[in-house]
């Protein structure tokens, strides 16, 4: 019994490592190339990376900043992963995040009284807001076969301009001195901090709760259906699944989670609506979701790493001559390498080389046939 358990553990460890190692290799390669680029620009890459590390983990407040950035990134990446796993390319996380934040703040600012129900209601509203925004794209895809890449992208802009209008119009802070921002939420609603002078807060628990939810969701019957649709529409149809309903559900869930990310950002970090409140996390969430193989736990780790890159990058820019854009380069390289690695794993390279070889053979064979007078004048 004990040995079996041990074996099981060893097996699990082995499996975990085999998932972790390629990701670590990808990151190491991206950091290496990033380092070379830093060196070409005439700076010391080791010093830059040391500052980056210190900036991400060097003190309590730096770790706190890293964690604050982890939460929205993790939630958005989890939301994106739900859609991507069903092969629905939701790139509208930014817009769904924004609408979620708007819905949530409307509940707290407009409903009378200050109590826990309103806080809970705002949470639900954030989910509903994101779900509506994502669900709209899902509906258009299910009903009219409208490409979700384009609709989610367009809805990002619609949400962005809607937010810009609201914080300059109906939702503008009356005491904000004409700044484009909403009034801040009542202090009682702010997510509690662990230490009063550090920004890290209970939002982290919400991130983890959603992570656990998604983890078990994929093990549920419904999660399995989603994966089936992702694997093959035809197979799913033969299995008697209503694909259009699942497409809609996927986008609702994916958008709703992005809405929750908006809620945590407002109630945990910003306390009000500001222009560009999603700060472009949406694009990064795609990278994080991919680096995490679209698996919840891996996404949790990947989002922490990316948050560390960002808060470290900020510190690096302050302390050295190396600009923050290095972080963008490293992030871009990571996806490029993930793509190449995935193709390598599925033997794409071998296939590709074999195909080339076959093609060449076919050409030589064809040439030989032509010599034999079997030319086809098409």
């Amino acid at each position: 019994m004990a040995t079996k358990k041990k074996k099981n553990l060893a097996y699990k460890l082995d499996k975990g490592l085999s998932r972790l190692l390629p990701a670590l290799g990808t990151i190491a390669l991206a950091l290496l190339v990033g380092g070379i680029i830093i060196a070409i620009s005439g700076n010391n890459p080791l010093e830059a990376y040391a500052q980056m590390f210190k900036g991400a983990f060097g003190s309590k407040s730096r770790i706190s900043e890293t964690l604050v950035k982890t939460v929205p990134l993790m939630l958005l990446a989890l939301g994106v992963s739900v859609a991507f796993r069903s092969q629905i390319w939701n790139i509208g996380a930014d817009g769904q995040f924004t609408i979620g934040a708007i819905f949530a703040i409307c509940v707290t600012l407009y409903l009378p009284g200050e109590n826990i129900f309103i806080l809970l209601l705002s949470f639900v509203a954030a989910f509903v807001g994101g779900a509506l925004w994502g669900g709209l794209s899902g509906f258009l895809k299910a009903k009219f076969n409208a490409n979700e890449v384009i609709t989610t992208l367009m809805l990002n802009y619609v949400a962005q301009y809607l937010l810009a209008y609201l914080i300059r119009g109906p939702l503008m802070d009356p005491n904000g001195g004409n700044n484009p921002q909403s009034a801040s939420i009542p202090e009682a609603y702010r997510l509690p901090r662990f230490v009063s002078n550090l920004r890290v807060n209970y939002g982290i628990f919400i991130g983890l709760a959603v992570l656990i939810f998604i983890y078990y969701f994929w093990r549920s019957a419904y999660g399995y259906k989603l994966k089936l649709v992702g694997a093959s529409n035809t197979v799913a149809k033969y299995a008697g699944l209503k694909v259009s309903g699942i497409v809609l559900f996927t986008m609702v869930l994916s958008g709703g989670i992005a809405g929750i990310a908006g809620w945590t950002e407002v109630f945990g970090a910003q306390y009000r609506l500001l222009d560009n409140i999603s700060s472009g996390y949406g694009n990064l969430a795609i990278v994080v979701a991919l680096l995490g193989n679209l698996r919840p736990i891996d996404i949790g780790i990947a989002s922490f790493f990316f948050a560390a890159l960002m808060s470290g990058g900020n510190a690096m820019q302050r302390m050295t001559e190396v600009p923050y854009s290095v972080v963008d380069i490293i992030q871009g390289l990571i996806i490029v390498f993930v793509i190449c690695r995935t193709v390598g794993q599925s033997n794409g390279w071998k296939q590709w080389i074999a195909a080339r070889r076959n093609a060449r053979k076919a050409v030589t064979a064809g040439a030989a046939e032509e010599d034999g007078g079997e030319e086809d004048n098409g």
Partner: protein
Amino acid sequence: MIQQIFTTTFFASVLGSAIRLATPILATSLGEIYTQRSGVMNLGLEGTMLMGALAGFLGCYFSGSLALGVLCGMAAGVLMSTVMAFLSVTMKANQVIAGTALTILGSGLAAFIYRSVFGLQKSPPQVENFRALPIPGLSKIPFFGDVLFNHNLLVYIIFALVPITWFVLEKTVLGLRIKMVGEHPRAADSKGISVAGVRYTAVMIGGAYAGLAGAYLTIAYMNSFTDNIVSGRGYIALAVVIFSHWKPSLAMWGSLLFGFANALQIRLQALGAPIPNQFLLMLPYVITIVVLVGVSKKAEFPSAYTQPYSRMER
């Protein structure tokens, strides 16, 4: 204020500015029409344009030649789109992911190179940019002269690309091959057309157009480079391509719609008009969604849209 708005000079200036704002979107969307007709959606246009903008600026800054700047911008666009073609055609990666990679990579690289070359400066380095080139005679026509015939050379060139793009796509062998590869890659392959080769070509033409649009931004529309100079125009170009049903002439009207909404918004704000300009800016995106819904029903998309081609799969 109403009197200020309803004057011919106001309209002439809005329309003229709409054309200048539409130009970079038009160039990029015309290029993306080639790309999408071949079955590839390049979501990395934003990053491609930014690299084009930087290369155009650097080329012009260090050589002093505007023509060389334009060429550098186009070369950078081709280079970036080659990466896109490699990822999506050779590696058969998902095009959304490849495009996102390219956008993030392009924004990072452009900002990094600019900073490495010029360091931190109080006032941004500038170039002598394209000057307005009034067309003799025509520019004197009241109203229309100001609107249509008083722009810089690149504006004329890019609008001339509309019929050229139409001609290449509809009347040349290359255009027919691009469409064939986008509609039915297997049939094209069986006719001995290299699907990968045609797609590489189409994506690279798209890159050249996007690079040209980027260069237009830094050395014609403005005279300096900033990290956010493209500010979503790459994505707008994607919207325009859908809006236009993959037709160059409609792409021109689509670009002008976006350009007009933006120009009107800028002018109205300058006048202090109490109109929420955000709705004006939002409108073209909403229209794009509506158009997309219509287009999708009739299945006007290239049949092999976003589908990698492999001989081994049926």
